[in-house]
């Protein structure tokens, strides 16, 4: 039965997340945009303490706790709470201490013993971060081309290579007792099948964060370059099986993406809604009416723009909810996750740019957060699969093509 209305108890639970976004994130939003690479420890501590609030983002998947919205729709619950927090600040959301993408990789590829061993820390002690390192200087979207290698040495693996664009990498390995999941090839001749995930613990010799990127937006989130130089990790840190099969291995990366793309789409939607809400309130203050129901030919330019922002955001939101809901139903959502990510990444980029435009010089000024949202929004059209990679996936799926026919 088609129904896109959240249940009252879900809505009231969302208010709690909204309060966090409004009262804890918004007040420091500008500050940690300006003070790139600094750590809002008070915010981190508070978020870490609030265990129930850790039940969002990839962390929800990795800690294995049941959400109050009911286990049946837990992925849907994750995307709606993600939207709410990213309405507050998407950079701070990404910086929030939790198991992150590293945890998602452990959940997707690890054995039950590994899940318990690596994820236990996120429910206790001081704030910690989990990170994932896949991108390299010479390969981004083509993640099957990674050159970082892992060679067997007795009971250990020796990892060598350079990883970049590792979200929360610095906080995971230098500022907390976290870890980074590194994707490295154990057999170059095996192509994709030879790429395996390794958990590298904080403080492991041979692993060094060499720089932090200076970015357009999401400046509260650290983006690290990490060099692995004969970095020794125990064999038990290889997630899943070391065996190089024809199928598997790299497929686990893809499984991770099917789960995380709707979340990134929801992050985008949170930023877009921040801009939309701001413009709505602004128009109200300026006594500019938005007249639903009249002939579209009689709409003013501003109300037409506003309605376009509004409906595009809702289209992206419904696609995103669907992708998450399908996971909750145990359905494969590869196509739908990419549709949601492609749509949300693009329209939120456009929505936030339009918000800057509609507000004129006010929109361009750093006195308001609107220009920041425009900068923050753009990353959602890039990471976890660029707009183009997601379109490629959609295209392959609707055409029934593999990567040989359409590349």
């Amino acid at each position, binding site marked *: *039965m*088609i*129904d*896109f*209305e*959240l*249940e009252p108890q879900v809505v009231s639970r969302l208010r709690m997340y909204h309060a966090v976004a409004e009262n804890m994130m918004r007040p420091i939003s500008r500050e940690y945009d300006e003070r790139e690479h600094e750590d809002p420890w008070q915010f981190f501590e508070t978020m870490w303490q609030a265990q129930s609030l850790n039940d969002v983002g990839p962390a929800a998947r990795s800690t294995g706790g049941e959400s109050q919205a009911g286990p049946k*729709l837990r992925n*849907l619950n994750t995307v709606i709470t993600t939207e709410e927090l990213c309405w507050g600040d998407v950079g701070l959301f990404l910086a929030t201490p939790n198991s992150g993408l590293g945890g998602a990789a452990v959940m997707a590829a690890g054995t039950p013993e590994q899940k318990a061993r690596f994820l236990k820390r996120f429910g206790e002690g001081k704030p910690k971060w989990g990170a994932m390192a896949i991108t390299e200087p010479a390969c981004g979207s083509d993640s099957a081309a990674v050159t970082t290698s892992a060679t067997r040495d007795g009971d250990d693996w020796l990892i060598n290579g350079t990883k970049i664009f590792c979200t929360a990498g610095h906080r995971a390995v230098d500022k907390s007792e976290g870890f980074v999941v590194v994707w490295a090839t154990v057999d170059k001749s095996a192509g994709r099948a030879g790429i395996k995930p390794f958990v590298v613990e904080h403080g492991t010799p041979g692993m060094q964060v060499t720089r932090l990127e200076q970015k357009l937006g999401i400046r509260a989130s650290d983006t690290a370059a990490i060099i692995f130089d004969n970095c020794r990790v125990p064999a038990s840190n290889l997630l899943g099986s070391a065996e190089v099969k024809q199928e598997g291995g790299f497929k686990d990366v893809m499984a991770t993406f099917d789960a995380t793309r709707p979340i990134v789409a929801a992050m985008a939607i949170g930023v877009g809604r921040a801009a939309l809400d701001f413009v709505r309130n602004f128009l109200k203050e300026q006594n500019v009416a938005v007249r*639903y*129901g*009249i*002939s*579209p*030919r*009689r709409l003013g330019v501003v109300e037409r723009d506003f*309605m376009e922002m*509004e*409906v*595009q955001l*809702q*289209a*992206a939101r*419904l*696609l995103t*909810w*669907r992708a998450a*809901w*399908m996971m909750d*139903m145990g359905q494969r959502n590869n196509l*739908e996750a990419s*549709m949601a990510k*492609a*749509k949300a990444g693009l329209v939120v980029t456009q929505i936030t740019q339009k918000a800057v435009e509609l507000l004129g010089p006010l929109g361009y000024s750093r006195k308001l957060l609107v220009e920041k949202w425009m900068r923050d929004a753009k990353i959602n059209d890039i990471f976890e699969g660029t707009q*183009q990679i997601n*379109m*490629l996936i*959609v*295209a*392959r799926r*609707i*055409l029934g*093509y593999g990567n040989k*026919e*359409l590349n």
Partner: protein
Amino acid sequence: MVDFQLSEEQQMIRDTIGAFARDEIRPAARLADESGKILPELTEKIWQLGLVRGAIPETYGGDGGERSAVTGAVVAEELGYGDLSIGLHALAPRLLAYPVLEMGTAEQKAAYLKRFTAPTFVPATAALMEPRWDFDLTELVTGARPEGSAFVLNGHKCVVPLAAEAEAILVYAKNGSGSGFEGVDAFVVTRDNPGLKINEREQNMGLKGLATYEIALDQCRVSADARLGADKGIDFSRLMSEARVAFSAMAVGVMRAAFDYARDYAKERKAFGVPIATKQAIAFMLADMAIEIDSARLLMWEAAARLDKGHDALRESYLAKNYVAASALRVTDNAVQVLGGHGYIREHPVEMWLRNARAMTALDGVATV
């Protein structure tokens, strides 16, 4: 609870109507477009599906089926997938029957609904749009003036489907002082009314299989019981929300038709030794079309689901309709583009779908759930 799945019954309806649209309606679409006529045999065949009779209560001889905007949208999408002209033609009687069913008095229901349970097609329609560039549902010019216990209607209407053959037309007119959606009433005008003049059939760029007319109401006198809902009047905003959902659903069907056709063509057609679908320039257009279709359908379903819950859906249906109007153009235009020169010639249906999709942005309220 949030749910993205149609009920089993709705899936069954979708499959049944979808198969009919594919096997019976689609093959008749080009002929209807070229000749301007829909074969009576086809009209009767669709009538047999019970799409109008279905929701009429058993008291009046109907099937007493549950009326749902979502189910209506599912049916409308499949009909639109077959052909927009034929779909609109088939559902035109609903333009009169459904507002009566939903907002008519007991006497009006008794007077009109039974007629729509007849075994053969019953032509009926509604007159809403007016021949002005700035036509606006919220500012109708056609007016109703009370005169004693009767009403006198004056004004011009356009894009009235099946007006020439309709037994009765539901005419929307301004009545009283309310502004916007308030103060609009609907009056049943039978074809024998001397104040009703049906002009020549309109010639449109698309929807050519659907016969539409401009009509004139000149001192058109109707009795008090012709006013739908009697003294209570109608909930015009809700009726228009329902109409927008239905029309949007049909357009989603057109988008899907164009997408399917372009996709299949692109996988067959070779250039430089390979199917053109293997080129990103084409594949990405198709991907964009697929995303737009799903976006449009979800927005339209959201408005429909709100209506089924009894919520107001003015904003949702309006935004959905405007979204669908824009994306239907984009998708059908891209379909023509994927076929290139072949998309421009009338041997393929995509040019027809582009012309039909254009109706979405030009017309308002010519369909009802």
